[in-house]
C-alpha cells in the first residue's frame, strides 16, 4: 500500500469499517487522538456520530433564519409599496395598507426564502456541488453509498503519518486500509 507514496501526492488514508457500531467507536478514538482534517463516510447519517467526531453545531439554521426574515420583510415591503405608495387603489373600502390581508403572502414568501436558505446554506457549508474529489479514486469507496463505513484522514493534517496513521486506523478495527492519491 505504500507503493505510490513518493510518486503522486497523497490525499490521505482511507479505512473501512464493518458496521455503524465499529465506526462510531473508531471515530471517538480518532477524535481523541487530536486529528483535525478527517471525516467519516456513511451510507446514512449514523446517530450520535457528530458527537463522536466532535463536530460543532451546524450553522445552517442561522442562514435559514436570516433568509426567512428577509422573506417576510421583503413581502411586506412589496405589498405596502405597491398598494399604499406606488399605485393607490381603494379596494373593498379597506385602508391602503391593510396589513391583515397581506399576512398570507408574507408567510408563503417567508417559507420559500427560509427553505432556499436552508438548502443553499447546506450546499455552501458542505462545499457542494463538488463533482471531483480525491476519494473517488478508491474503488472500494463506491460502497460508501451502499453498505460500507469509512474514515478518511487527510495527509494535510499535522498529525498525519502515512504508516502510523494507517496502523492506528487498523488497530481501531478497520477491515481494510488503503492510501488514496490526491
Amino acid at each position, binding site marked *: 500500500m505504500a507503493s505510490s507514496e513518493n510518486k503522486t501526492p497523497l490525499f490521505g488514508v482511507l479505512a473501512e469499517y464493518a458496521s*455503524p457500531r465499529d465506526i462510531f467507536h473508531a471515530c471517538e478514538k480518532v477524535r481523541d487522538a487530536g486529528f483535525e482534517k478527517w471525516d467519516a*463516510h456513511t451510507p446514512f*447519517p449514523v446517530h*450520535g*456520530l457528530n458527537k463522536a467526531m466532535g463536530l460543532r453545531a451546524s450553522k445552517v439554521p442561522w442562514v435559514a433564519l436570516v433568509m426567512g426574515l428577509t422573506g417576510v420583510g421583503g413581502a411586506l415591503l412589496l405589498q405596502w409599496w405597491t*398598494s399604499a405608495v406606488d399605485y393607490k387603489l381603494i379596494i373593498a373600502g*379597506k385602508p391602503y395598507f391593510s396589513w391583515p390581508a397581506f399576512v398570507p403572502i408574507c408567510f408563503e414568501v417567508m417559507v420559500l426564502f427560509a427553505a432556499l436558505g436552508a*438548502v443553499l446554506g*447546506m450546499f455552501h457549508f458542505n462545499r457542494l456541488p463538488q463533482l471531483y474529489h480525491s476519494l473517488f479514486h478508491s474503488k472500494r*469507496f463506491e460502497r460508501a453509498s451502499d453498505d460500507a463505513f469509512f474514515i478518511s484522514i487527510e495527509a494535510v493534517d499535522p498529525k498525519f503519518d502515512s504508516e502510523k496513521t494507517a496502523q492506528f486506523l487498523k488497530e481501531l478495527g478497520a477491515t481494510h486500509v488503503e492510501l488514496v492519491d490526491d
Partner: protein
Amino acid sequence: MEPHSLDHERVDRRPPLIDGARDFHSITEAVSRPVETKVPQTWYIVFGIGTSLLLLLVGSTGYLFYEGTGIWGLNNPVAWGWAIVNFVFWVGIGHAGTLISAVLFLFRQKWRTSINRYAEAMTIFAVMCALLFPTIHVGRVWLMHYVFPIPNQMDIWPNFRSPLLWDVFAVSIYGLVSTIFWYVGLIPDLATVRDRATKKWPQRIYGFLALGWRGSNRHWQNYEVAYLILAGLATPLVLSVHSVVSFDFAVSQLPGWHTTIFPPYFVAGAIFSGFAMVITLMVVSRKMFGLERLITMRHFDAMAKVILLTGTIVGYAYSVEFFVAWYSGNPYEGFAFVNRAFGDYAWAYWIMVSCNVLSPQVFWFKKARTNLKVLFIISIFVNIGMWFERFVIVVTSLHADFLPSSWGYYTPTLWDVCALLGSFGLFFTMICLFVRFLPMVAMSEVKGALPEANPHFVPPDDEPGESIEASPVAAKAEPVPDPEPTPEPETEVSAEDGSADENVETDDSEQEEPNDGE
C-alpha cells in the same frame, strides 16, 4: 454516559418496518433494481395509457387556447366549473405527500421512510396538474404573467387583498418547496445509483445530479439540519396552502362558501384524498417492482388508519355545515344546504357522502386495513368521493344563488372531460418516468431506520436466546436480557419505532403474509 438509557432499551413489540432481508446491501439492491434493469411489461402498458391521455391533454388544451373557455360547460351562474374542481382536487392529492414527508418526519414516525419518496413525487406531479387548471382557465393564457407582481406597461399591480392572488403565491411556492425538499432527499440516493452505474451516461447524469455527494459525516450533519428545517417549514406550509385554497371560497359572500369551517375542513379532506391516492399508487407499484418487503402491510395499515380518521373528520364537517346553516337562521344559507342535499345536484351530494363518509368506515377492521383488494377499492372510492366533494362545493353553491331568475344548471362538455382525463395522463406519465429513472424508496432513510443502523446495536449472534428466532410469539413473550448493557446510549433514540428492537428478531411477517396475495 447520558441519563436516558432506559428509553434506548425499550423493546418495539410491533412487527418490523421491513420484512425479511434486513441488511443495508439488500435494500440498495431492491431499490436500485428498477432503475438499473428492464422494467416489467405492465409499466409499458401504464406508460402507454399515460402518454396517450397526455396527448389528449395537449390536443384539447390547444383547441381551448384557440377557441377560448366557451368550449367548456361554463355558463353564467356557474362560472367556475370543472377546471376549479380539478384544481382543488389535485392540490388536495398533493398534500398527503408533504404530510408523510414532513409531518410524520417531525413526529419521528419511522414507518414513513418506505413511502415518503414516492409520496413526495406524487405531491410534485399533483401540484403540476393543479397549477395547469387555473392557468388554462384564465382564457388568455399568454397574459398569465399578470398574476405576478412584475412591472408592466399599465403601471398597475396585482390586488394583494384577493385570496385568488394568495392562491397564486401559496400553490406555486408549495410546488417549489416540495420540489426542493424532494431533491434534497434524493441526493444521497442519487449518489448510490451513480456509484452502482456501470455505463458512461448513467454515471455522468446521476453523478451530475448527485452533486458529488460522498456520504461525508460533516455533510450529513448540515444535511440533516437542513432537512429538519425543510420539514419544519413544509408542515405549516401544507396547512396554509389548503387553507388559502379554501379562502378562494370562504372569503366570498356566497351561501355555501362563506363559512369559517372551510380551512380545517379542506385540509382534512386534502390529507384524506392524498392518502387514498398514495394507497392506489402503492398497491400497484409495489406489486409491479416487487417491493413487498420494503412496503409492508404495516404501512398500509397505518395509512388506512389515517384515511379513517380524516374521512371521519370530513364527515363531521359535512354535518357541522348543516348545523350552522340551520343555527345561523340565515335563509339563504339554509336554502343552499337543503338544495345541496335534496336539489338538482342531490345525486352528486350522495355520491360524495357514501364514498367519503361511509366507505372508509370498513377500516375500523384490521382485516380490511390489511387486505390489498379492499384497500385498493376503498382508495378509488375515496378519490371519486373527494372529486365529487369539490364538484358539490363549487357547482351547487353557484348554480342557485340569491336570485331565482339567474339560476341555472351546469353540464360539462366533452372538452371538460378531456381536460380531466388529460391531467391524469400528465400525472401517470410523470409517475411512470419517476419509478423508471429515480430510486422510488428513500434508501438512506430506510437503512437509517433499521435496528442495525444504531451504533449501539448488538448483533443477534452476540445474544443468548437467539434459538427462538423462528417464533415471533415466543420472542415477544420472553424478553431477552440484554447481554451487553450498551455503554454510551447518547443517540437521540426516538420514543417510537425500531431503533432498539434487537430483542424481537421477527424476520417473518406472521399475520400479514396471507393477505399479501393481490
